[in-house]
């Protein structure tokens, strides 16, 4: 299976259109230009990140974290930094309540300590992240969302990105505050590397959806890093549909007692698309809880790689962690790799995980067939159902309603 998908994907990459934008490597001088006029702490962050980027060797198919991917014909050279413009939707009522949605540039003036706090703690340090380091050095534009202490945003806040190469979104939820935020990506550039920084204050609640619907030829990197304070809860939903190769690091750090995180993910992949998800459930305080469910449905010659790490630090007694990865193979050429890792240093914990990879159940197909549905209609309905419990778990219908419709599998192209 591996070799056949390599062969066919290569021809796809040779499409002349795909190579017209052989972007020059990002130069130090370009970063220098970016930082002109920025605060010294921020310039240091960018320079440090660029050094990290350069110190990490370019990945090959032997590099840890990349071995399972097919890199033939994939151009990983960094794109020049083009500013990312977020279209932000915030209801007037929520704006009046003090909710802020603006550019990072403006937030650096109005909410400097918050932005600084976010940018100085943008990663757990547990992920190699060559391209997230690049994004940390090269981001331009970007958006900042903030819900002040005790405020509940009543409407979902939407941050939509159409253009740019290194998008960045910072979300800061105050103490006892509550919000739903959707970040959606529709870039079609050759190369996009994005950062999302999520901070949830004490007893705060954030439901966050990240919908990746980039162009079919785009190489998409995404790094999400969340810091959850005591008593707070974060629910994340990652939807992967676009991109030729999409590689995501999703890190959640439970930093305060009783912090909780539900991490949900859905991938629908077709053709020779490759999706690589790496998740971190980091338990760093007592009585923390994390629950992860990532599902992928893979058609044609698509390939998904999932690596999930649960870390329970020594002091994080009574942590409760669960992780499940389920993969549905819709075609013979599709494949899925799944790999859980547990690092548990506390002794009083509950930690379980499970993974499955398999085709659609033949008895299910027969049952739907016996009711008149042809193979395509039956598969479509089964995949829809397969995704549904993930949407159900998000528990925010306002947020998922549109995403559900958009994410309904389209199997019509099948022969």
């Amino acid at each position, binding site marked *: 299976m591996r070799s056949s998908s390599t062969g066919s994907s290569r021809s796809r990459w040779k499409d002349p259109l795909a190579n017209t934008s052989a972007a020059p490597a990002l130069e130090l001088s370009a970063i220098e230009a970016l930082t002109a006029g920025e605060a010294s702490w921020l310039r240091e962050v960018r320079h440090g990140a660029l050094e990290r980027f350069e110190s990490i060797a370019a990945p090959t198919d032997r590099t840890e974290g990349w071995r399972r991917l097919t890199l033939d014909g994939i151009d990983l050279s960094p794109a020049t930094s083009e500013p990312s413009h977020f279209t932000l939707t915030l209801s007037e009522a929520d704006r009046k309540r003090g909710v802020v949605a603006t550019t990072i540039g403006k937030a650096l003036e109005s909410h400097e300590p918050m932005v600084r706090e976010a940018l100085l703690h943008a990663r757990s340090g547990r992920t190699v992240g060559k391209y997230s380091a690049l994004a940390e050095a090269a981001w331009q534009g970007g958006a900042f969302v903030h819900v002040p202490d005790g405020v509940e945003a009543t409407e979902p806040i939407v941050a939509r990105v159409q253009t740019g190469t290194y998008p960045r979104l910072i979300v800061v939820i105050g103490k006892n505050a509550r919000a739903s935020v959707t970040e959606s990506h529709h870039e079609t550039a050759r190369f996009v590397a994005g950062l999302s920084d999520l901070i949830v204050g004490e007893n705060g609640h954030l439901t966050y959806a990240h919908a990746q619907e980039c162009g079919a030829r785009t190489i998409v990197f995404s790094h999400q890093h969340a810091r959850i304070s005591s008593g707070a809860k974060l629910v994340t939903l990652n939807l992967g549909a676009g991109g030729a190769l999409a590689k995501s690091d999703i890190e959640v750090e439970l930093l305060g007692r009783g912090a909780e995180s539900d991490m949900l993910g859905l991938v629908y992949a077709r053709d020779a698309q490759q999706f690589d998800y790496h998740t971190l459930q980091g338990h760093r305080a007592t009585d923390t809880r994390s629950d992860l469910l990532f599902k992928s449905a893979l058609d044609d010659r698509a390939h998904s790689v999932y690596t999930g790490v649960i870390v329970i630090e020594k002091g994080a007694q009574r942590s409760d962690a669960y992780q499940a990865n389920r993969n549905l193979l819709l075609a013979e050429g599709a494949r899925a790799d799944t790999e859980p890792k547990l690092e548990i240093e506390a002794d009083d914990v509950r930690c379980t995980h499970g993974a499955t990879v398999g085709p659609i*159940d*033949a*008895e*299910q197909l*027969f*049952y*739907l*067939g*016996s*009711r*008149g*549905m*042809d*193979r395509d*209609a*039956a598969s479509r*309905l*089964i995949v*829809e*159902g*397969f*995704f*549904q*419990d993930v949407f*159900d778990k998000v528990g925010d219908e306002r947020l998922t309603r549109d995403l559900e419709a958009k994410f309904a599998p389209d199997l019509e192209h099948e022969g």
Partner: protein
Amino acid sequence: MPDIILQIKDLHVKVGDNEIIRGIDLEIERGTVHALMGPNGSGKSTLSLVLMGHPKYAVTRGDIIYQGRSILEMAPNERSLAGIFLAFQYPSAVPGVSVANFMRNTLMARHKGDAPLTPAKFKGLLDNAASKLQIDPKVLGRYVNDGFSGGEKKRLEMLQMLVLQPTLAVLDETDSGLDIDALRIIAQGIEAQRSPEHAILLITHYQRILNYVKPDKVHVLVKGRIVKEGGPELAHELERTGYDPIIKELATV
């Protein structure tokens, strides 16, 4: 001349190397209810799945003629669209797909190219069938057979039959594992399906259901062959004697 809906001719069926159906002949006329009875392992469920076109079973000899033409080459969904329905003994669960959504899809498969059913009509159709079977409307929002009790699964099979109105309904042990109240409701569902236009093949181990649904004809299947046929009185005889005398009689022949 009676209108023959289903004609099974010298049917032989194998799973792997194992011959399970070993020469069945059976005719079902429009407007009739036939009961197919037999002990466990006689091939009853196999016959029902073969009629629906389950890919696991290979027809090695004979033919199945439905409304004048052989269906052996037809896929399960084509058989369904042609008017054949199977109420499964063990229907699959379809997690994440509500009963209402599932039913909408079964109807969409039938209305290809036609104007789609209006939401109001669809709801009326579903609610009407549900009330006949005393199904709580909440069940229509639950995921198909996901966490359903045995009785709920059987009722959902009946619900689908009443909505789809098949010409030939094959009911595979739809009566098994039910308490007396549930059995009565299932029987009402079968009676609602019974009409001069429809034919029903009721597959059962026990005579019990036949107290509520009177069959026109009873066939007894043992070891892949029909060994005895008669009217409704045959079912009562079996209730008294069990299958042993028939099996013994066969052994001595």
